[in-house]
Each structure stands twice: as structure tokens, then as C-alpha cells.
């Protein structure tokens, strides 16, 4: 059974589009990436999982239970980190965390202090005195302190410095190894590429592709650069080649097709250097958004 099942999930805000006919499954202990630009519907999807909003149509199920009907049950085992973190300004960090922990059946005190230590969070400060990055840390700790089975991350790294991002990713990997399923929404492809096993790409409220990260990179274009003293870019203008460019005596392009064809083309030339790489997710991604 899939941990998260989404069937034809649709959400309109009045006439404004949220998401349309979104369907996918997330398996147990998977790190599932959810990628798209701002306004594509990433937050809408996660907010539907938490039943902060209710679907216009379709259904989302977590642990086999409908999110809209069994919200409190499901949320006992969900950790949610919103993209924008807001907490009761007048409260101290420790009081907010204790308040957060008081909603769960298990005792979260030990894990709470452990997480605060990892994230270097000062517990005695008031929320209103915290910087954005520090508030985000509060968000991470309150979202993970009950060791949830499903962790919903909505652009989790914004506001964190690179060092903290590293710690955060390490933390998420550990949670995952412990058995947690991770739903990771982001518009930063690099981090999704590093973390996730599968990825769904969402555009204007619709899912346009769901794929293994590896397949996405392998069954795709190769990124090829050929350097030569005298080279005619048009020689490479064959079927399967896109984005052919010549820059400083280096011809660069993306190629999809029989690799031998392009190898022959290259070997016909007197070249000084050749690189053949997997394209980054960014480059694949741009292709979907053209």
C-alpha cells in the first residue's frame, strides 16, 4: 500500500486555479520530490494533505485514510514544515516547542532537545526576536519532534545558511533511514536531485511528469561539449540535437538518440577536448518549462 495516494485531486480558490486533476502515489520510506516554479500548486497540494484547505474534487489519502475526513488521526503521524513560518510572537521558543509537543500522544521532550541542539536553536529567546532563518529552525524542530511517519516539507531550505542546509539534509536522511516517508517540495532542483529517489514535476497546477531521478537523467539528453581549433557547429545539426551553440571555439549541445551516431560525428573532427555529461536536473527542467 502506498503511504500517500492522490487521486484526481483538484482545488480551485473560487475561480482561481490551485491544482487540477493531480494524481500520484508515494511509497513507504521514499523521498519523493515535488518540483515546480512558484504558483504551480506545490503548497496547495501540501495544504490539502494537512486539511488546512479542502479539495474541490478528488481525494488525497495518507495511510489509506482520506485527509479531509480523518485529519486529526492522520496528523498524529505527520510532520509539516510550511514554506513561510509564523509562530506566536510573544512566546519563547521552548514554550512554543512544548505547546507543539503537547498535541502528540508520545513524550517528545528528549527528541525536542536533541533536535534543538543539532539545529543550534536557542530555546530561551522570544519568537519575535528571531531572524527568519532561526524561525525556520523552530519550524524544523516543531515539525520533527514527534518522529512522524510522514514528513511534508514545503521549500524547507529557504532562509537557512548552507551549513544549516547540510545539517538539515543529514537530519532528513536519518529520519528517512529510521523509516519516515518524505514529501519534499522545492523549486531548487539541485537539492531535490541530491535527496530524492522519484520526482513529480508540476506546472500550472498539473502534473506533467513523474519519474525516477535516474531515469530522468539517463533516458534523456546528454550534454556534449566539443572543443576544436576550427570547428563548424552546423556539422552537429543532426536529428536529436537541440540547443546547438558555439562559444569561444567550443560547440555545446544536448543530444538524445543513438550515441554512436554522434560519436562518429565527433571523430570525424580534429578535436582538442570532448566532454559528455548527464544534464543537471535544472537543464532537464528548463526543457519541460519551455
Amino acid at each position, binding site marked *: 500500500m502506498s503511504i500517500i495516494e492522490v487521486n484526481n485531486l483538484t482545488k480551485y*480558490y473560487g475561480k482561481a486555479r490551485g491544482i487540477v486533476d493531480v494524481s500520484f502515489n508515494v511509497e513507504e520510506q521514499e523521498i519523493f520530490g515535488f518540483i515546480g516554479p*512558484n504558483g504551480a500548486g506545490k*503548497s496547495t497540494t501540501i*495544504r490539502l494533505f*494537512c*486539511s*488546512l*484547505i*479542502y479539495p474541490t474534487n478528488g481525494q488525497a489519502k495518507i495511510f489509506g485514510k482520506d485527509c479531509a475526513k480523518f*485529519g*486529526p*488521526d*492522520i*496528523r*498524529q503521524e*505527520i510532520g*509539516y514544515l*510550511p*514554506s*513561510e513560518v*509564523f*509562530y*506566536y*510572537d510573544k512566546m519563547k521558543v521552548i514554550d512554543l516547542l512544548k*505547546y*507543539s509537543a*503537547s*498535541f*502528540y500522544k508520545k513524550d517528545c521532550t528528549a527528541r525536542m532537545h536533541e533536535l534543538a541542539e543539532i539545529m543550534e536553536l536557542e530555546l530561551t529567546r522570544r519568537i519575535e526576536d528571531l531572524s527568519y532563518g532561526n524561525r525556520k529552525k523552530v519550524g524544523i524542530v*516543531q515539525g520533527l519532534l514527534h518522529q512522524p511517519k510522514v514528513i511534508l516539507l514545503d521549500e524547507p531550505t529557504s532562509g537557512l545558511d548552507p551549513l544549516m542546509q547540510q545539517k538539515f539534509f543529514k537530519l532528513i536522511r536519518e529520519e528517512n533511514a529510521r523509516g519516515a516517508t518524505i514529501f519534499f517540495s522545492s523549486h531548487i532542483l539541485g537539492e531535490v536531485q541530491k535527496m530524492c529517489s522519484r520526482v513529480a514535476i508540476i506546472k500550472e497546477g498539473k502534473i506533467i511528469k513523474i519519474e525516477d531521478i535516474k531515469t530522468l537523467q539517463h533516458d534523456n539528453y546528454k550534454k556534449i561539449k566539443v572543443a576544436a581549433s576550427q570547428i563548424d557547429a552546423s556539422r552537429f545539426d543532426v536529428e536529436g540535437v537541440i540547443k546547438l551553440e558555439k562559444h569561444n571555439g567550443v560547440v555545446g549541445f544536448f543530444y538524445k538518440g543513438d550515441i554512436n551516431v554522434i560519436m562518429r560525428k565527433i571523430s570525424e573532427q580534429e578535436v582538442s577536448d570532448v566532454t559528455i555529461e548527464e544534464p543537471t536536473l535544472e537543464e532537464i527542467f528548463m526543457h519541460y518549462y519551455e
Partner: protein
Amino acid sequence: MNIYKHEFGMYIRSVITWSLSIFALLFLFLSLFSSFSASAALLNETLSKFPPELLMAFGMNDMDLSSVLGFYGIVFLICQICLSIQAANYGFGLVSVEERDMTADFLLAKPVGRPKILTSKFLAALTGLTITNAVIWISSFLLLNLYRAGKSFDLRTLILLLASIVIFQLFFLTVGVLISLLVRRVRSVTPFSMALAFGMYVLSAFGGMLGGDSLDIITPFKHFEPNYIIRNGAYDLPLVMISVVAIIVSIVASYLLYSRRNIASAV
């Protein structure tokens, strides 16, 4: 219970401020009674020269300022205005403040159902209002006995007046919650609560002035008009029932609306 405790913590400062202010008001006003009552006959005569419409507007028609409760009725009306603002503040802010400050995302993503959240919030606000209510009870008894200038008053009528406070508060609390759920977003609580409280007061005042009874039928200032209760030693029961019905309808509708509400996001 955890939500209730947390919510109540948010009210403490406000409850103390309101309670102390109302105590100060009662104290200042009632301590003047002995000097007033000495020249009460003169005062009553002066009042009778005012146009009756004006006196009606302030609920002061047929008011005997020489009697303890007649005098108390005036300050009780001012208390009612304060109470209506306080209760409306809590009502309009009950769920809207969390949505305005974006903390609703935190609370509603916790494993707790919407009805339970609303109940906890209602009870926390009601506890705050009840503390203010209790302060009025205690200070009224205390101050009236201290400053009654040897005159007696009907204890039963005083209790009737004080007992009306809880329904009066509930009206503004629950109607405030309902309106806050009907509008898209409450950006600031004060304009809403002021509009509801003063709107209801003005409606009652104008109704009195015009002498008709069409408009003022909806306002609790009319349902629990101190002057009426003092003069008759009883509530105007059909009018009180309107308040009660409004409270019940508001509560039921609030639960229905809140359970289905889509919480707006930060961006």
C-alpha cells in the same frame, strides 16, 4: 486542554485591563452617589426639563436618580458598552487573529479537529469574560454597600441586572465569531468590534428616540436595558429570547463554517 490553556494565556493581560478599568469606572461613579443623592430632587427636576427624546436616547427616561439603583442604572449602561466592546473584540479575534498572523498553519496542522479547536477557543474567551463579569458582581455589591448613603435598594433587581451580563457578553462574543467567519479576512479586529458594539448601542438609542420598536428589536442593549429592568424588576422576556436565539444560531453556524473553512496561506 492544552489549546484552552494556551488561548487563555493570551487573554490574561486584556482581561486584567478591562476588569480594572470597569472597577475604576464603578468606583468613581458610585462614590459620587452620596453627594448626588443629597441634591437628587434638584437633579431630577433638571432632568425633567430635558427633551424626553434625548433622555430616551441615553436610556435615562423615567429614571429616579435619587434611588440607589436608578443611579446605578446609568453606570451599568456604561459598563454594558465596555462589556460589548470587550466581548466583540474576543469574538472577532477568536479565529481571525490566527489567520491574520499566519499561526493557523501551525495549529491546524496539529492532530486536533476543528470543532475541538473552536470549543477550546470559545471556552478560553468565555473564561476571560467571566472573570470580568465576576469583577463587576463583586465590585457592585461592595461599592453599593459602601456608598448607598444610608438608602436601601432591592437586592433582587440588582441580581437580575448582574445576571444579564453573561447573555449580553455571549451575544457579542458569538455574533463576533460568526461575522468574522462570514467575511473573507479580518485584517484588524478593532474596527469590527467597535462597529458592532457602538452600532448596537446607537440602534438602541435611536430606537428609543424614535419611539418605534422595529430597529431596536435586534440589539441586546434593548433586550437588557438597565432602566427597564430596574423599573419593572424583571426582564422583557420576549426580547431576551431574541438574544438567546441569536447566540444559539451564531454558535451552530460558526461550527459549520469553521469546519469547512479554507485557511488562506501566507503567499
